[in-house]
């Protein structure tokens, strides 16, 4: 702790000592708390009349959807595989042509936004003098689905409803006639009423478990109530009138074969609020992983998708804003799993291993209709420690395209170790450059897990843009930014976003460790890395003559934006090369 931090701590402790003392609970505390608990619970419990209305409205909605034309099946030309993925402690196995949407962070945030309004309306009802007046007032508050009483964790559906749509949140949600949908949701109102899971049957439970609970908080359908991890959950099933019986059974099987092991950690998720399609899952040396797909949030015209491999602990390795062309029809990321994007023309993808072992076939997944981009995504497990290169098949007679001449490697293999301690967290990473393959892999030496791979496509991009970044490459680790630069770059700077800040030039003591442009043995590639105390900024590389060669912005959530931010742009000056 430096001097300023110590002085700050002293001031805060001194000030805190001036805070008023609270020796005992004030009178009426229990009554107030109980009123809040009852209020929260009652929103759901007085909703029967409204439920009937919702049920009728829902049935009408089903009627309305009859006769609509289903979208073309995106999986018509693709191999459907069995997908087992973990979402917030639930492990669900289902065919890959059912859309599996992780909705918990988003739904919980919708719930939080609703909370204040709901509380105010409840309190207004509570001010009425008699129970006879209070009950209809509270009953009138019910707007379920959508009042935040049932919080979806994930949804499994036949059709692509987009990411922010759920029968438990959107009162106008329409089920297609040929559709089977399952939603698993946290039953908040029950939790608030019974201080946990109450006497709900513990998981596993069968689809046809009888229930007397008729709240129907997700509209018409079949409800199964159960407890898992001492928390109450609801499984809601909606089946269209023309659903294929086999498909219906598939969804029921997905439910009954589910492993439910949620923990209260789900309430502490800090990974943001964006819902995602879960397109694959599996297990590697570090535990379960899932591959999440969501739209890229950038406003750049080249923005398209974000694809992230998420571990159970919340770590992530990602790939975003894919740019494919004829010369470079594939991009890859990750070590295990390896995943990425590939041109639609490809008939397959293989992982080519540098040790000469047989290639590993990858699974290709079409993007959902709500993401109309002209490429597919792929993934494959790579349990070996050998860095793989993903190659597209069927694009031309020669098989995978050759690397661009500028990226052709010569020379021996280079291994570069980067290490440091950020706070109390030691980190140690190893770069392995393989000149013959034009690959560079980044591996966490603490557990051997592979974090990222720079393949031929990225090499080519590097030679075009002159700069490649991996911000926050270490799952659950410090903010360490890694970069690769073109050979003409002799120095670099980072302009930090926000506040009265300036650049970090190589001589600045806040570089920790100081960035060193390190040769990798690959022609035209130098590496650097540094711990940074901030998640947004712009990296600029300079030539020996102080010309700006390349610049890229890195933003939170592992994004790299090729378009410099205006506010940073204004502060960029020439930074001389270090002596």
């Amino acid at each position: 702790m430096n001097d300023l931090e110590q002085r700050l701590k002293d001031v805060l402790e001194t000030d805190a000592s001036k805070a008023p003392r609270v020796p005992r609970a004030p009178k009426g505390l229990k009554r107030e708390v109980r009123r809040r608990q009852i209020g929260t619970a009652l929103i759901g419990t007085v909703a029967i009349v409204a439920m009937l209305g919702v049920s009728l409205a829902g049935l009408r909605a089903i009627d309305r959807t009859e006769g609509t034309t289903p979208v073309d099946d995106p999986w018509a030309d693709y191999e459907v595989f069995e997908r087992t993925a973990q979402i917030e402690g639930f492990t669900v196995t289902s065919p890959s042509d059912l859309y599996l949407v992780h909705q918990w962070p988003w739904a919980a945030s919708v719930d939080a936004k609703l909370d204040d309004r709901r509380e105010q309306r409840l309190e207004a009802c509570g001010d009425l003098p008699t129970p006879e007046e209070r009950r209809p007032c509270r009953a009138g508050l019910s707007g379920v689905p959508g009042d935040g009483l049932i919080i979806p964790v994930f949804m499994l559906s036949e059709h692509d409803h987009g990411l922010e749509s759920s029968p438990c949140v959107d009162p106008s949600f329409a089920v297609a006639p040929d559709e089977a949908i399952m939603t698993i949701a946290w039953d908040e109102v029950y939790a608030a009423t019974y201080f946990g899971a109450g006497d709900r049957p513990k998981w596993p439970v069968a689809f046809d478990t009888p229930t007397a609970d008729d709240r129907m908080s997700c509209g018409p359908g079949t409800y199964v109530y159960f407890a898992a991890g001492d928390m109450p959950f609801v499984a809601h099933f909606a089946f269209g009138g023309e659903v294929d019986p086999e498909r219906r059974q598939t969804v029921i099987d997905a439910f009954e074969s589910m492993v439910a092991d949620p923990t209260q950690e789900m309430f502490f998720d800090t990974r943001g609020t964006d819902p995602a399609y879960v397109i694959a899952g599996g297990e590697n040396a570090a535990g379960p992983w899932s591959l999440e797909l969501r739209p890229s949030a950038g406003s750049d015209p080249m923005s398209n998708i974000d694809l992230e491999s998420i571990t159970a602990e919340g770590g992530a390795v990602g790939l975003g804003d894919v740019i494919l062309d004829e010369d470079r029809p594939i991009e890859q990321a990750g070590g295990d799993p390896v995943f990425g994007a590939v041109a639609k023309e490809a008939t397959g993808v293989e992982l080519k291993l540098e040790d000469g072992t047989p290639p590993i076939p990858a699974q290709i997944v079409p993007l959902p209709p709500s993401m109309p981009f002209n490429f597919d995504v792929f993934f494959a497990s790579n349990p070996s420690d050998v860095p793989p290169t993903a190659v597209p098949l069927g694009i031309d007679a020669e098989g995978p395209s050759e690397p661009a001449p500028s990226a052709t490697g010569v020379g021996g293999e280079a291994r570069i170790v980067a290490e440091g301690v950020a706070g109390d967290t030691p980190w140690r990473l190893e770069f392995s450059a393989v000149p013959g393959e034009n690959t560079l892999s980044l591996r966490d030496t603490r557990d051997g897990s592979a974090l990222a791979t720079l393949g031929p496509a990225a090499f080519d991009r590097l030679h075009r843009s002159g700069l490649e970044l991996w911000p926050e490459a270490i799952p659950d680790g410090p903010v360490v930014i890694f970069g690769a630069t073109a050979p003409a770059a002799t120095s670099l700077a980072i302009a930090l976003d926000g506040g009265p800040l300036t650049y970090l030039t190589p001589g600045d003591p806040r570089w920790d460790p100081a960035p060193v442009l390190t040769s990798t043995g690959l022609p035209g590639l130098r590496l650097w890395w540094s711990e940074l105390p901030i998640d947004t900024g712009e990296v600029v590389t300079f030539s020996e003559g102080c010309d700006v060669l390349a610049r890229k912005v890195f933003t939170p959530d592992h994004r790299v934006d090729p378009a410099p931010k205006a506010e940073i742009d204004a502060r960029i000056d020439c930074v001389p090369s270090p002596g």
Partner: protein
Amino acid sequence: MKTIVGPDSEERIQAKSPDSAPDETPGSLEERYVRHAPEAVRLAYLLTGDATTAEDLAHEAFIKVAGRFHHLRNPDAFAAYLRKTVVNLSMSHHRRKRVEREHLARESSRPAATSVEPPDVEGRDELRSALRALPDRQRAAVVLRYYEDLSEQQVAHAMGCSVTAARSLVFRAMETLRTQIPRGDDE
């Protein structure tokens, strides 16, 4: 299967009081208040700088958390939610005060009264002033990090943001303080 609906649901739920819940967090509501409320008041005081407001916010936060998250059995989780709620309520309080100040500024040309405090030693007043001048979220992040001694992850949870965003808030706050309180740092 348990049902929680019915014409007498209000009465039945009332009959099942929090204190009679078999799986409740150990200790009565009053005991929990005594255990957690002082820390909540101190945090609210550091975030608002006003004793009365701090008491009100801490009390409101306790009612909210005890009422809504009573089912959480882990006492640590209760404290974390209480801390998060105090931070949220403080932010709302600051927003309301800002609107009030803007309204008053339009209504009156009188300059706002400034607090008068006894002289301090070693530039603490300077630091205190700089701390109060920080944007609300940066101040909250610094208080949570350096007063509550929370990890970056815990700060992120309390503030409802990502770990990197929390780290960024602390860093920006410290950079601002460093530029305004240059003496004695970075030695």
